[in-house]
């Protein structure tokens, strides 16, 4: 058991709350105090509403005292990435464009967290509109990695990962379009799960690339990720891409499914650009599974070399379309200097968006424009078919694929100034988005310099209940996830 309540897991806290050894108000106060003590250095939060959180906690304690516990998250403070709507709270996407926006309604995941009794806590920083891999693209300033404040927490859900690692929340939600949950989870030493595309409703999530975006949890353990997924997963009539699929008891699956499994190692994920310390930690994880009688099989995903380009064409094309809605008319930033409506659009967008968002809108507009659509966008969609087939073929022989989450550990703030170099951070994570697969990052060690390393397991579509036990088995045999940064 960890000493401070804000470093406990959901599972541990639920037991303490149930036993009356802790109240939600006490827990929430501890999280608030921790946030006040460390967030001036970590900068994980865009904003938080202490009074509102304590009122939610008091309401939770009142429910508990009258035997009306709503669910497993009753009284647990959960932080939300600032792209997920919470009614009457700010929703900025870390952009000047939405600096003053207040959500008129709840996202479906927000509704589900409320229904499970969670205390919604704060708005977490990100790369503007979730475009980035370091959280440096935030209009409100970068988040810092709690393990080394001179380094990035990863991104785009950097605030969600850093807040959790620093004890400023018990669990958080992020969104993952090309690795934006898993890569920051790896760089901050926590668990991050991107569910299958269509398992979790996107209603109330600010859209970046709609065919790739998924909301998912960041947690201290795989068990906590299972609990969170069980709360947020399931069909939603408000999201037409949400699947009519059964939501099993993911937490119960952890105890029921103990392997051995057939684990595929895609050879293309262990080549050039992989940091040697990351590679060595992942090799040790492979050795662990082998020691547990798992069948380790080298597999090939032959179109891996095309993942990055396919992703950046499809994601920017969708983003250029999705972000067309920010025109300064109905909501968001409006320029003070326009004489006609055309100028109002162009100047409002120029003033409201940061450099990376503009860059991606330009690229996405270009690849969709007349004369270039077939050469870029349509071709990328066809290559996406090949990439997806690679994965589905591999799953004929294996239960899951094992790779590093990120080729490198946390890098220094300001280190990557070239956009292409930054895009390469996502090289191991984007395949799961293009193919719609569930994937999880689990801590698997530290570098000599004390930076966390993450292991990625990629599962079969909608088989989270098979994937999570594989990650749980590794985690429970190691103690990486019990380490905390000294702040």
């Amino acid at each position, binding site marked *: 058991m960890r000493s401070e309540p804000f470093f406990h897991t959901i599972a541990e806290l639920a037991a303490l709350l149930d036993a009356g050894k802790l109240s939600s108000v006490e827990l929430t106060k501890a999280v608030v105090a921790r946030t006040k003590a460390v967030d001036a250095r970590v900068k994980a939060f865009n904003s938080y509403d202490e009074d509102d959180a304590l009122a939610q906690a008091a309401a939770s304690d009142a429910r508990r005292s009258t035997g009306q516990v709503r669910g497993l998250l009753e009284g647990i403070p959960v932080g939300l990435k600032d792209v997920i709507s919470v009614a009457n709270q700010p929703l900025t996407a870390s952009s000047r464009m939405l600096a*003053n926006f*207040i959500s*008129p*309604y709840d996202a479906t995941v927000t509704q589900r967290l409320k229904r499970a009794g969670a205390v919604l806590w704060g708005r977490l920083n990100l790369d503007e509109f979730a475009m980035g891999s370091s959280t440096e693209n935030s209009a409100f300033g970068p988040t810092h990695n709690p393990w080394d404040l001179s380094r990035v927490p990863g991104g785009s859900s950097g605030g969600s990962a850093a807040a959790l690692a620093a004890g400023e929340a018990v669990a958080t939600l992020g969104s993952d379009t090309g690795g934006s949950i898993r890569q920051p989870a790896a760089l901050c030493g926590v668990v991050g799960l991107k569910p299958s*595309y*269509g398992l979790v409703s996107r209603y109330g999530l600010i859209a970046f690339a709609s*065919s790739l975006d998924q909301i998912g949890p960041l947690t201290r353990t795989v068990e906590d990720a299972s609990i969170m997924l069980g709360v947020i997963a399931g069909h939603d*009539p408000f999201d*037409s*891409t949400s699947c009519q699929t059964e939501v099993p008891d993911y937490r119960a699956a952890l105890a029921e499914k103990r392997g051995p499994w057939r684990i595929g190692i895609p050879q293309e994920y262990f080549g050039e650009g992989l940091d040697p310390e990351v590679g060595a930690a992942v090799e040790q994880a492979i050795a662990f599974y082998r020691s547990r009688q798992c069948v380790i099989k080298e597999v090939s995903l032959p*179109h891996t*070399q*095309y993942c*990055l*380009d*396919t992703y*950046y*064409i499809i994601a920017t094309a969708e983003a*250029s379309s999705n972000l067309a809605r920010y*025109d*300064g*008319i*109905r*909501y*968001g*930033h*409006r320029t003070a200097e*326009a004489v*006609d*409506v055309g*100028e*109002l*659009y*162009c*100047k409002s*967008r*120029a003033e409201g968006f940061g*450099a990376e968002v*503009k*860059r991606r*809108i*330009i*690229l996405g*507009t*270009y690849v969709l*424009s007349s004369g*270039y659509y077939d*050469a*870029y966008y349509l*071709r990328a*969609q*066809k*290559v996406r*078919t090949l990439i997806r087939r690679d994965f589905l073929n591999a799953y004929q022989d294996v239960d899951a694929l094992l790779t590093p989450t990120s080729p490198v550990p946390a890098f220094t703030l300001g280190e990557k100034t*070239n*956009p*292409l170099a930054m895009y390469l951070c996502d090289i191991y994570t984007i395949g799961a988005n293009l*193919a*719609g*697969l569930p994937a999880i990052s689990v801590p698997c060690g530290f570098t000599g310099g004390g930076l966390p390393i993450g292991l990625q397991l990629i599962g079969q579509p909608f088989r989270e209940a098979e994937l999570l036990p594989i990650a749980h088995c590794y985690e429970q045999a190691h103690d990486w996830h019990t380490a905390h940064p000294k702040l």
Partner: protein
Amino acid sequence: MAASSDLNIDHVAQLARLALTPREKAEFSQQLAEVLHHSEQLGKADVSMIEPTAHAFPIFNIWGGDEPRPGLPVEQALQNAPQQRLNMVVVPRVVE
């Protein structure tokens, strides 16, 4: 694949309704040329007879019942409007 030098930044910025500064134009042109150059390798993939994937899983048209249900009240729908009057959003004159 088209040559990456084809990116006419003025034209694309106009399509995207983005007012870029001369410095942004120069910077983005150079950076995106690099990204587009990298993407030229997609031309090596054999995509003959391959159908495009729009979503990871086949999604068919989703129909909703044609039934009235409560929506956002006007005040809430307009609460984020930069300028409003008489329950309407104010914009610069569009038609002379």
